[in-house]
């Protein structure tokens, strides 16, 4: 291997996804004049916010070698819990937000307990939570959308100036998570637990506590996503968020996080979410039939992971 190709390989490894994103962006701006405009790019930012927040959360769980399938249902539950407290003149806007996030965190902590103390595989534990949280959302909302929300609450789903608040929330969450993962001991322990749980334990790490943190944080972020979604669509929908967990996991995996744990970054996850969002937006702009959109998305998920697995070689 020559030195130059080594540099190219390293560049591709850390920037491959970013390069792909720029390439697709350039292609789309030629294909549709409306793509490369400030309002549209803000649109993309707004539209990836929910999925992005969920993806950052599930990155934490995937890093520890687990998975969280309950995200979509927790989004719905947090949404209806928050919406139920957000009618005009009811409580200060902080109350519904806090309760929505708390509901999410509680679901996440329950997942964590099932995985750590109950020794239930995360796939099963969170599958159970997926069903249970959906049921709970229907109970809380009596099966109906919770509407008539205060303008202070729904403003969370709106813009400040031209910048969408959901996107700002995502950026804030991504920055905090980045710091946790790269600057804090806690982050290092997350990678260690996912990389080799037994070695992590033998290094004196409380593996259960680390897993609890990952699931609880993931749940809390799902709660945030639920609150933001409810504000954006101005209702708490008990049947919102179906399938969101898979979209989030897809973004994370496209971003280079390993499903077997121990490898991944927040930056990759955000790029993954952006890639999916940009392609979604571009296909809508070009009015590509829904049938073909689904095919394109499927190909991209597998293709991105395939590229990731193979660019280290050859």
């Amino acid at each position, binding site marked *: *291997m020559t*030195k130059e190709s*080594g540099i190219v390989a390293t560049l591709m490894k850390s920037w491959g996804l970013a390069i792909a994103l720029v390439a697709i962006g350039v292609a789309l701006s030629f294909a549709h004049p409306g793509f490369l405009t400030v309002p549209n790019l803000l649109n993309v930012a707004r539209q990836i916010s929910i999925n992005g927040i969920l993806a950052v959360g599930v990155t934490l769980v995937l890093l520890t070698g687990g998975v969280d399938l309950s995200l979509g249902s927790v989004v719905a539950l947090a949404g209806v819990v928050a919406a139920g407290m957000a009618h005009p003149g009811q409580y200060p806007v902080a109350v519904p937000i806090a309760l929505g996030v708390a509901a999410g965190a509680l679901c996440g902590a329950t997942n964590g307990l099932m995985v750590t103390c109950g020794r239930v595989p995360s796939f099963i534990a969170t599958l159970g939570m997926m069903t249970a949280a959906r049921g709970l959302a229907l109970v809380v909302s009596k099966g109906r959308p919770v509407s008539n929300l205060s303008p202070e609450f729904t403003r969370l789903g709106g813009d400040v100036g031209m910048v969408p608040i959901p996107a700002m929330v995502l950026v804030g969450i991504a920055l905090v998570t980045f710091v946790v993962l790269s*600057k*804090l*001991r*806690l982050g*290092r322990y997350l*990678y*260690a637990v996912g*990389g*080799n749980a*037994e*070695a*992590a*334990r*033998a*290094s*004196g*790490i*409380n593996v259960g506590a680390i897993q609890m943190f990952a699931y609880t944080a993931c749940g809390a972020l799902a709660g945030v996503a639920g609150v933001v979604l409810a504000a954006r669509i101005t209702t708490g929908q008990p049947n919102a968020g179906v399938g969101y967990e898979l979209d989030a996991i897809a973004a994370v995996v496209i971003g280079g996080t390993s499903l077997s744990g*121990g*490898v991944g970054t927040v930056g990759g996850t955000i790029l993954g979410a952006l890639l999916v969002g940009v392609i979604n937006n571009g296909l809508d702009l070009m009015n590509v039939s829904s049938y073909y959109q689904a095919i394109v998305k499927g190909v991209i998920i597998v293709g991105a992971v395939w590229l990731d697995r193979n660019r280290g070689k050859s």
Partner: protein
Amino acid sequence: MLPNPLLQLRNVSKSFAGVKALEEVRLDVEAGRVHALMGENGAGKSTLMKILGGLHQPDAGEIRFKGRRIHHRSPHDALRLGIAMIHQELLPFRDLSVAANIGMGREATRWFPGWLDHGAMNREATTLLSRLGVPIEPTRRMRELGVAEMQTVEIVKALAHEASVIIMDEPTTALSEREVAALFDVIRELKQRGVAVIYISHKMDEIFRIADTITVMRDGHHVATRPAAELAERELIRLMVGRDPAQRAAVPGNPGAPVLEVRGLTLPGRFHDVSFTLRRGEILGVGGLMGAGRTEVANALYGLAPATVGEIRVAGKTVRIASPADALKAGIALVTEDRKRFGLVPRMSVQQNLSLASMRTRWIDRRAEAAVADDQIRKFSIKAAGRDQPVVNLSGGNQQKVVIAKALLTEPEILILDEPTRGIDVGAKAEIHSLISRLARTGKAILVISSELPELLSLSDRLLVMREGEVTAELDPLHTSQEEIMSFAMPL
């Protein structure tokens, strides 16, 4: 010597992520001979064998087999050509029969495709096994077999593929002396049949017992190839290390106050009523056969699998050790026997593995962490492309050094080393021995578990022997013999 070797490697080079693992290596292997491949960890032996076995492709150079140039790209290709590899870690199908394992990949069928002919497969297995003089029933499940028997089955499997070159990577690591003798009988039988055996091992005595030719590698280069009969052990070590081996002078320690007192430690089914005292600056050796409960005691002291009964006192105070975190807090560190499982996070870098057990602050100071890592890499002469290289890419010996350095970074008062030199080359072994002695001299209390009696005898100040979960003797290494130790270790 034959004019035309069975297998020829010419100028084979290979690098990983910019690090040269092999540079212009040559090797000639002849039919019906045992060719030993020696070198320190990281010398490139495993890489070379993985190229031969089809797991890696060389960057440059050529491989000729039976006079023809070959380009095999997978273990499957290699096997089809007749090059079989017996791995260091065996990967059998544990729930299938011996015959099914032997027949794997070329199952006999009858009546219609896919319908297995178990009768034919059992008959074939019986023939092959008896040809090597191995008494294994072909219908037994793999999981019922001992490691040595599994290894033999792997060899038979290679024969079934009509392999003419069989590569054995450290085949005796987990074998008893009797099993080693049986394996060597099999190897001699293979020679008779004209099979070429490439044999990798760190054990000098084995090499001189079985090898016809010895090739020494160092730092990815071919150093020398000599007939085994013409090579003295000291000369061989010099070739491998590149310098004369420094004789370790056994400095008797001066034990001080008791640091670790263990009383009546019991974990039902594993060990029973284990008691001993470990003093400051003392090296306490623990001998015994595999399965005698030594590793289990170490794991209990470290909290990996806590004992249910008994008392552990550190510096006079009773401590409760329910997890490794408790042990580390009490000043106990363990260098595990199973470093893949308990020692390392494979995809993390050298730096991150080194610091993992000793991160004392909530925020990571990267600069300090890097400085510590560089320091340890230098101190232990860990061969790595840099502190950011994932440990999974290091050779076994260098991984072991990382594990030891990691344990020492926790600044323990009590260090438990479980088989610290298993699968490690002579050079590194001597380094680790002198390190252990040095640590004892600085006042650390050290517990060493080893299955190599010479190592135990030369290293320890005191010696415990375990048999079937119980301590059977406490001996003075200066006044005992390997025979005496064995008499306390062998099951009655």
